[in-house]
């Protein structure tokens, strides 16, 4: 009975057989590509849960001034390195007696910025170069992809340190550094799928029905490249946060009084034998955020696969 529903033989009118309307509906209603993606995502509870976690993290960063019990920059010599649940300092205090919870909430602003802005920028730049290289092929492809290979030759952390070191610290420079580091892998993903799609029959079929190169690029190549690139980009968000934390940890990111997860880890590491759990708190924030982004991107990949 339910097996017959999936194939829906043309002779058998589903409604005439008294099939519940809800099951017959999806095949008949008009749904765009994104509609289909949402339809699949709706029943993926794990992804939805972590999507919720991400929203919580974003909200806590946005509303940090309202949520923070203390001023994140207010030091107190008397209350240095206190344990968890010390009076009102739920997560304890750091080496200058500042409230860890408040600093984590404010630090989320920097870290999320570092996670999202470079990825979005790199998706545009890398995606553009990748699609052009993949579709054009030949010499242009060689020029673009070999230039990207130059960046691939360095381990990403080393590359980030090198660029950051020559540009100097500060938030804007850190964003630029991360964008440069993330562009080559995104470019490669876009290039791979664009060159695959270029050789598909439907591109020839579109040309055979009179489509111009621009229209083929926009309507057939780009649309098919978008989903692998977006999925890959979403996995890079957590990598970008980690990389930014690493840079801050090394002192190449935002400058000290600004709260930042990586920077907090860096300064707290000296107190690791005194208050190990308190010192781990910024690390927990990084871990939680990157796990949430990774799992959501996993779910997204499944939902965006049209043929599934």
């Amino acid at each position, binding site marked *: 009975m339910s097996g017959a529903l999936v194939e829906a033989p043309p002779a058998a009118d589903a409604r005439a057989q008294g099939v519940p309307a809800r099951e017959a509906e999806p095949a008949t209603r008009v749904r765009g590509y994104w509609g289909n993606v949402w339809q699949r995502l709706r029943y993926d509870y794990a992804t939805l849960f972590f999507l919720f976690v991400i929203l919580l993290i974003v909200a806590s960063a946005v509303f940090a001034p309202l949520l923070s019990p203390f001023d994140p920059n207010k030091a107190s010599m008397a209350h240095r390195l206190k344990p968890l649940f010390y009076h009102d300092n739920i997560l304890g205090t750091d080496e200058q007696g500042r409230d860890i919870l408040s600093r984590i909430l404010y630090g989320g602003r920097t870290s999320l910025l570092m996670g999202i802005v470079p990825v979005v920028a790199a998706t545009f730049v890398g995606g553009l170069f990748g699609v052009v290289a993949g579709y054009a092929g030949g010499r242009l492809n060689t020029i673009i992809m070999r230039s990207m290979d130059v960046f691939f030759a360095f381990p990403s952390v080393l590359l980030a340190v090198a660029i950051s070191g020559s540009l100097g610290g500060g938030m804007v420079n850190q964003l630029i550094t991360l964008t440069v580091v993330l562009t080559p892998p995104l470019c490669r993903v876009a290039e791979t799928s664009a060159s695959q799609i270029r050789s598909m029959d*439907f591109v*020839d079929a579109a040309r055979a029905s*009179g489509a111009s190169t621009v229209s083929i690029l926009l309507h057939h190549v780009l649309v098919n490249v978008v989903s692998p690139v977006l999925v890959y980009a979403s996995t890079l968000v957590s990598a970008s946060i980690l990389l930014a934390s690493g840079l801050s940890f090394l002192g190449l990111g935002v400058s000290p009084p600004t709260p930042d997860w990586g920077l907090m880890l860096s300064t707290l590491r000296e107190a690791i034998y005194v208050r190990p759990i308190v010192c781990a708190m910024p690390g927990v924030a990084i871990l939680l955020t990157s796990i949430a982004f990774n799992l959501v991107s996993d779910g997204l990949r499944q939902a965006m696969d049209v043929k599934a």
Partner: protein
Amino acid sequence: MGAMAPRPLVEVRDLQVSFVSREATVSAVNGVSFTVMPGEVLCIIGESGSGKTVTMRSLLRLHPPRRTVIRGHMRVGDHDILALSERAMNQVRGAVISMVFQEPMTALDPVYTIGDQIAETVIRHEGGSRRAAMARALELLNLVKVPSPERRLRAYPHELSGGLRQRAMIALALSCRPSLLLADEPTTALDATVQIQVLIMLRRLQEEFGMGVIFVTHDLGVAAQIADKVAVMYAGRIIEYGSVADVLLRPAHPYTLGLLSSTVHGQTRDAEIEAIPGSPPDLRALPPGCSFAPRCRFAVPPCTAAFPPTALAGLDHAASCLQIEAVRGAVPAHADA
């Protein structure tokens, strides 16, 4: 009365196509000439690599221009294919000439619905609103006998079976009433039962629309079903041309004879199926003379000296062979299959 012969829809003269790469030049088509009258179905038969698909794609100029050298003359309707600008060519593609691809699985874009894809072509060539184009798409799906077309209009390619997908592909190709339809093994990827339905439908639509059709296949049974004329290709040349009955029942070229005796149809039961010995020539370095000579059991020394001239084997039946009489003698006199 009408002493003037009607003008052919398609005229191809001495077409040569070669693909140039750094390592080698592959001569895929070496001097092909044929004509197709309006409302006529020409079947091009040949094995893989014989140049049949390349010939057809040249008619739409689908080959990558930088790596392909096309020489000769091609005319379709009033259009001189090789002289058109890219922009003018885009007007011809889909509207005057359209094409059905072999793999319906990959020839439809997976992220658009069937209706969207048909409407896209209609709007491109004829303008008009999306609503009108969708109505046209529905009409076309009805025409190619897609069951419950309203629903299929909104289906994605992966939601359809192979046969339905190929019907949708045909609807797409017919969307602007082309005068020439190119079909590249459109039934090869389908089951035998679906194959025959699609063939019958194509034949009916061809008569209804009065289209000329060039149908490429390697299946002689399919050719017998649909063709008016048959051209047999080997190593980038047409080696035999004639009406379907002449070529398939009274072959004049040893290669055609070999093809016919290597099929299952029309053979006595339990008889060993004959195979043509040897393998097709290397297109990067074609031997002089007849390309089939090294595999031919009728070959005589002059065969390898120069490519044999086209000789008439009957009224409107020609073959490029020096041994037509010998081949004729070897044709089994079995009852008409």
